[in-house]
C-alpha cells in the first residue's frame, strides 16, 4: 500500500473511529467529516481492492456496480485491502474496515427507501471513506437514443441507466443536450422545425420554449453555473461563432468573430470564462474567452492533434475533451490552464459528474453507441449495460 493512500485512510479512520454506530436514513446525505485527498489526475492511482461479503441479489449487484464506478476493484478477500461486511435481510447493514490495520471506517444500518436506494447509500459512504468523493449515485443522467442516423429522442434515467424515462417523441434530431438551472429543465438543439434551433424544455410542465431560432445554425447550448446566462453557437452572421445571451435567449452578445467555426462551449465553474473548440487556426483547438467578452486564448493540449467537445470539471481543475484520431475518438483531460494531455479511453462527448472525478461519455462500436462511466484517477471504466439502444450525448445532473 502506498503512503499517499495510507494518509487519507488513516485520517478518515480517525474521523470515523470516534463516530458511534450510526443509523442513517437511506435518502439522507452522508454525515462523514470532510477530508481532502490528492485527486490529481495522474491516472496512476490504483483501484481500491475491496471485498464484499454478506450481500446477495439486487443489493450486491448495485453495490458492485457503484463501487466499480467509484474506483474500486471487487476482489477476493485474500486480495482485498478493504472489507465490506454487510447484510440485507430486511434493511441493509454495512461495515467498512481496513483489512491490514483492522481499523473500522464505519458500521451503519440503512432504513427507509428501497433496497436500491439503501445499496446506493452504502456505496456512497464507502466511496466517500475511501476516496473523499461525494456521492453521484443519486444523480440522474439525460441522454439521447438514436432511432436512425438522423433521428434520436431524449431519455432521463438514474445514474446507472435504470428507470429510463422517454422525454421526447419528435421523430427529429437532437444535438447539444444539457441540463438547465437547478436540473429543472433541459436545453438542446432540435431539427424539429426544419432548422437546428435551441429549445428549453421544462421538466415539470413539459412546456418547450424556443431560445434561439435564427437562420442557419443554432446549437450547443451551455448554461452558466448561476443559471442566468446561456452560451451557444450561432451562424446568424456567417461562420458559426460563440454567443452569450440571457437564459431566455434575449440580450444576445457575439463573443467570437472568426473565419473558422466554433463549437461546444462550456463554462468555468466560477462563471467568468468559457472554453470552446475552434477551427480558427485550421485545426480544432481549445480556447478560453472571458464570459463578458474579450480576447480568445488558445490553451495548450500537448500530445494530441485535435480537440473538441470540452467540458470543465466542477472543481475547476481540469477540462475533459475529445480528440479525433484516424479511426476513433478518445476521451482526454488537460489541466484547465492547458498543458500535457492525458488520453483516458476510447469515446466521445465527455461530461463531468458533480464529484469532478467521474466522467460519462459515449463509445461507438460498429453502429451501436454505448454509455460509459470512467473514474478518472483510477481509469476504471464501466459500460452502462442497462441502457438499451444506441445512446449518445450523456450528461449528469449537477
Amino acid at each position, binding site marked *: 500500500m502506498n503512503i499517499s493512500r495510507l494518509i487519507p485512510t488513516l485520517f478518515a479512520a480517525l474521523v470515523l473511529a470516534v463516530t458511534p454506530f450510526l443509523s442513517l436514513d437511506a435518502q439522507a446525505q452522508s454525515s462523514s467529516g470532510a477530508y481532502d485527498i490528492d485527486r490529481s489526475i495522474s491516472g496512476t492511482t490504483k483501484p481500491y481492492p475491496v471485498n464484499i461479503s454478506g450481500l446477495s441479489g439486487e443489493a450486491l449487484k448495485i453495490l458492485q456496480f457503484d463501487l466499480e464506478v467509484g474506483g474500486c476493484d471487487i476482489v477476493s478477500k485474500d486480495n482485498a485491502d478493504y472489507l465490506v461486511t454487510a447484510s440485507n435481510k430486511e434493511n441493509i447493514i454495512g461495515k467498512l474496515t481496513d483489512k491490514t490495520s483492522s481499523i473500522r471506517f464505519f458500521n451503519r444500518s440503512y432504513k427507509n427507501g428501497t433496497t436500491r436506494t439503501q445499496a446506493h447509500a452504502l456505496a456512497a459512504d464507502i466511496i466517500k471513506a475511501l476516496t473523499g468523493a461525494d456521492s453521484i449515485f443519486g444523480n440522474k443522467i439525460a441522454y439521447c437514443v438514436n432511432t436512425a442516423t438522423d433521428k434520436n429522442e431524449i431519455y432521463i434515467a438514474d445514474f446507472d441507466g435504470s428507470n429510463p424515462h422517454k422525454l421526447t417523441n419528435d421523430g427529429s434530431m437532437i444535438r*447539444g443536450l444539457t441540463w438547465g438551472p437547478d436540473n429543472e429543465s433541459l436545453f438542446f438543439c432540435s431539427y424539429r*422545425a426544419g432548422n437546428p434551433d435551441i429549445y428549453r424544455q421544462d421538466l415539470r410542465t413539459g412546456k418547450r420554449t424556443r431560445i434561439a431560432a435564427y*437562420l*442557419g445554425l443554432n446549437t450547443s447550448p451551455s448554461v452558466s453555473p448561476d443559471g442566468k446566462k446561456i452560451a451557444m*453557437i450561432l451562424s446568424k452572421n456567417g461562420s458559426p461563432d460563440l454567443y452569450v445571451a440571457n437564459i431566455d435567449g434575449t440580450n444576445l452578445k457575439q463573443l467570437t468573430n472568426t473565419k473558422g467555426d466554433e463549437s461546444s462551449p462550456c463554462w468555468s465553474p466560477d462563471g467568468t470564462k468559457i472554453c470552446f473548440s475552434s477551427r480558427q487556426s485550421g485545426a480544432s483547438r481549445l480556447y478560453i474567452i472571458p464570459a463578458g467578452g474579450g480576447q480568445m486564448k488558445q490553451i495548450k493540449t500537448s500530445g494530441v492533434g485535435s480537440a*473538441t467537445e470540452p467540458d470543465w470539471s466542477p472543481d475547476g481543475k481540469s477540462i475533459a475533451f475529445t480528440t479525433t484520431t484516424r479511426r476513433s475518438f478518445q476521451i482526454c483531460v488537460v489541466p484547465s490552464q492547458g498543458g500535457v494531455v492525458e488520453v483516458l479511453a476510447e469515446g466521445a*462527448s465527455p461530461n463531468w459528474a458533480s464529484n469532478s472525478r467521474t466522467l460519462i461519455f459515449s463509445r461507438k462500436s460498429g453502429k451501436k453507441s454505448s454509455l460509459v462511466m470512467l473514474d478518472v484517477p483510477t481509469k476504471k471504466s464501466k459500460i452502462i449495460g442497462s441502457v438499451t439502444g444506441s445512446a449518445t450525448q450523456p450528461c449528469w445532473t449537477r
Partner: protein
Amino acid sequence: MKNLFKPLSVLGLILAVSLMTSGCKNPKPGLTDIPTTSPRIKQAGPTGPNQITNNGIRTPGSGSDSGIAYGNDGGPGSGSNIGSGIDDLTDEQFANMSPDAQREYFEGRPMDREIFKAYTVHFEFDSSSVRPADMVNVQYVADYLSSHADCALLIEGHCDERGTDEYNQALGERRAQSVKEAIVSAGIASHRVRTLSYGESKPAVDGTTAEAYAQNRRGEFVLLLPKTEGSDTTNVSDIAGDAE
C-alpha cells in the same frame, strides 16, 4: 493524409468536367428551365428522384407534427407579399427584418432537390474550403439563380463520420457558408441563400472507406421555388410543447 486526396480531387475535376460536358451540354443561364408554377418538380436525374422531401425539411403538406412548423402566416406585418415570388428586397432590408420574418422568407417554399443534384460540391478532410474544381458547379447554380429571380437557394452542409457530433454540426455549417460565400461572390444576393448543417447525420453513402467518406463530405444545392398560394399557414412563433 493530404496525398491520399490528391488523386481524389483530380478525379473530382475529371468527374465535374465530364458532367458538364455530357450531362449538361450547356451550363449557361436559363437553358435548364423548369415550370415555376409547379410546386414540386420530379426530375429523373442521374441518381433517380429519391430525395425530394424526405430530408427533415418541411414541405407543404408533408408535416404531421403540426404546431412547430414555420412559414408565412399571411397576417399583417408578416411580409405576406414576400411569398408572391417578387423579390425586390435588398440584403440590407433583409438584415433589418426580424429573425422570424427572415425565416419566413424561406419557409413554405416548395423544394426541388433534383435540379442541382449533379452539382453537389465536395470537401477535403476537415476542410471547409470550396475546391477550385467545384467552382464550375457553384457558377452553374449562381447562373440559374440570377435568371430565376423568384427562386431562393438552400445549401446543405454535410460531413463524414470522423468528427464528433457537435464539431461536425459546426463544420457542416461552415462548409455550407463557404459555398454560400462563393455563390454570393458570383453575384447572388446574400439574403436569397439559406444554409443548413446536418453534420454527419445524413451520409450520401454508407461505408467507412476513403471513397465513401469523400462522397459524404459535401454541400448540396436545393432550389427553393416561389411560394404558392396558401402553401403554408402555420404561424412561425407557434411552438407547441407537446412532448411526452
